[in-house]
């Protein structure tokens, strides 16, 4: 068991203009489950490999416990890793795969047998010990990889997208299992994924990265509700947060935000959270609205009228429980620049005619072509600096 400290970690490759990883500093507590998440190429795997000793460190330090391990070979760092491909030894039985770290460490035969049995029991692999990995299902292989990692009782687990090769259903199941095993063993774990659902459900804390730069480290709730910037806001949540350019107005009624034709009153609760908003009165800002904070006003007759806007419904997607209504807002949408890869949620148009996605209740009668009245839970509005993208609050 150990803490892991990353101090100003940097990785640059010869010939690359931008460092693959710049100035990454995270303190990971003993027994903590930290998820490194971000789009492809954000540097999360590089960071993991540097911790594991599989990549050279350009500058900065990696500490495990109190020990700077920069110059330690992988095998001397007391860590175990689960690979995306599982990297099982195809010529060995399941037993030998799990036992391999102990065999290398020259642990006694009986001790090995006992511990493999123990791990196999935990992972429900007992019937398969004599099989070769080639004869196992994806989930079983994944468990063998886990078994090989946990048998050595290392100080730190590193997991590199360990569930991404599983089908959707199995992934959900294994997600819970992995998290449960980690809690049981209470081993410090660093888990890399590009799947925000894994990040949100498994981690004690989530570290979101982009282009080699850490964006925010926080608990899943905090990162969802208090995103540090527009990138975090747009990345976490599905469908993504709606982000629009708006103008802050101040009049007798208090602070209002103007989004195209619509004007919404910003309640005190929001102003309290985003304490810098007041300083930006009469200027352009970025407003973030989570789809679930937008409801069909027809279903909420008591909703304050100054927190409602009207917009034409361009498309309604029914999810059964909810109706996702795409409404046209006459405000410019924010495009979060990134190599978005498969995260289409992040891509937005710069059109004046921005699309805004609202999660209406299934009771909603709004249909395509209707002009709907949308009730906005304005106390949960998010505000960002239009130049830097940072949240308008003290951190």
């Amino acid at each position, binding site marked *: 068991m150990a803490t892991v400290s990353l101090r100003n970690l940097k990785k640059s490759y010869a010939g690359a203009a931008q460092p693959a990883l710049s100035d990454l500093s995270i303190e990971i507590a003993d027994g903590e489950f930290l998820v490194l998440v971000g789009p492809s190429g954000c540097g999360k795997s590089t960071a993991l490999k540097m911790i*594991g*000793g*599989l990549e050279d460190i350009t500058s900065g330090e990696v500490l495990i416990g109190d020990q700077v391990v920069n110059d330690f*070979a*992988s*095998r001397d760092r007391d*860590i*175990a*890793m689960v*690979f*995306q*491909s599982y*990297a099982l*030894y*195809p*010529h060995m039985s399941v037993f030998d795969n799990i036992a*391999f*770290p102990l065999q*290398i*460490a020259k642990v006694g035969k009986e001790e090995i047998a006992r511990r493999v049995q123990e791990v196999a029991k935990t992972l429900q692999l007992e019937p398969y010990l004599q099989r*070769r*990995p*080639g*004869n196992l299902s994806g989930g079983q292989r994944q468990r063998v990889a886990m078994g*090989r990692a946990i048998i*050595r009782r290392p100080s730190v687990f*590193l997991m590199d997208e360990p569930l991404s090769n599983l089908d959707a259903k199995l992934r959900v199941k294994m997600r819970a299992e992995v998290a449960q095993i980690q809690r049981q063993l209470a081993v410090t774990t660093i888990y890399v994924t590009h799947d925000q659902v894994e990040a949100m459900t498994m981690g004690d804390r989530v570290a979101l990265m982009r282009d080699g730069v850490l964006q925010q480290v926080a608990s899943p709730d905090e990162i969802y509700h208090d995103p540090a910037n527009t990138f975090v806001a747009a990345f976490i949540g599905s469908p993504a947060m709606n982000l629009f350019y708006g103008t802050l107005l101040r009049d007798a009624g208090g602070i209002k935000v103007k989004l195209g034709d619509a004007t919404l009153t910003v309640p005190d609760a929001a102003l309290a959270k985003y304490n810098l908003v007041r300083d930006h009165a009469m200027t352009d800002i970025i407003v973030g609205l989570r789809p679930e904070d937008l409801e069909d006003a027809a279903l909420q007759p008591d909703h304050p009228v100054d927190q409602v806007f009207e917009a034409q419904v361009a498309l309604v997607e029914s999810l059964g429980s909810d109706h996702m209504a795409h409404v046209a807002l006459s405000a410019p949408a924010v495009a979060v620049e990134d190599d978005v890869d498969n995260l289409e949620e992040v891509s937005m148009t710069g059109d004046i005619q921005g699309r805004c996605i609202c999660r209406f209740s299934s009771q909603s009668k709004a249909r395509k072509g209707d002009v709907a009245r949308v009730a906005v839970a304005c106390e949960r509005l998010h505000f960002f600096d239009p130049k830097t993208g940072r949240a308008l609050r003290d951190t």
Partner: protein
Amino acid sequence: MTQATLPKPPSQFSLRYGHLWFVLPGFLFFLAVMLLPLAFAFGVSMTNWSGLGNDLSFVGLANYAEILTYYPFYRAAFHNAVIFIAILIFQHTIGLYLAVLLNEKPRFMQFYRTVLFLPVIMSLVATGFVWTLMLSPNIGLVNPMLEAIGLGFLAGQWLSQPGTALAVIVFVTAWNSMGWSIIIYLSGLQNVPEELKQAAAMDGANTRQIFWRVVFPQLSPAFTALTVLTFIGTFRTFDVVYVLTGPLGAPNFGTDVLGTLIYRTAFGGSSFSSAEIRFAFGVAMALLMMVVMAAICWGLIRILRSREIEG
């Protein structure tokens, strides 16, 4: 019961055997260029045909029976076996080692790889001739070079001593076939996922353990392929011997292999006399050699395959 199954729909047969139509063109080709000549050769091997004229009679398996006590056949086969074992050891050590070095992607790797593979694509007859010239005690480069670097005691009449002539054959064959072992092993090495080695490193293995316990076992298909190819290649070797030491496997048959023996027996090794030519006997030796080699190959593949990874 029988009655019910009797009126089979006519498509039943074609359902079961219809796919054979697709094999037919290939089979016909195989029949024409392999099976028929083989059958013909087998027929010839049961006669006493010298290769000239139409004077022949059926002798049954007499040729085969004679081979069993024909000393030159065993002498030649023994030389083939020596070459096989030596080349096998060479390829699985030096060849593998060079492949591992190349797999580290050194600078100028393309260059090294090309240079090491070059002998394979060069004609053995041409390179064999160059080797004869280089090794010649009279006009060759090798002896003067050895003397120049202080290894004069190694200089010698390589090809005319029975003790070293076979070693030279092995050396030239090894030099020539090294490219194969490197390429086959290199492709095997490149098929070993990087993550497997990283996983082993994580699991505490040092470089040597990673290689022998994780990487090397992944190479067993390459090992099998190479062993079988080497076996076939060394037992049908002919050109190196023919060029380096002539059809008689000089000196005094010290390098005579099955290839040269069969050639001599079937076609003659002298320009002045065809008295010793026995075509049918040569064919019998070739066929016997083929059958024995096929059996050994089958055994080799069975043994080696069982060690490979399934799935």
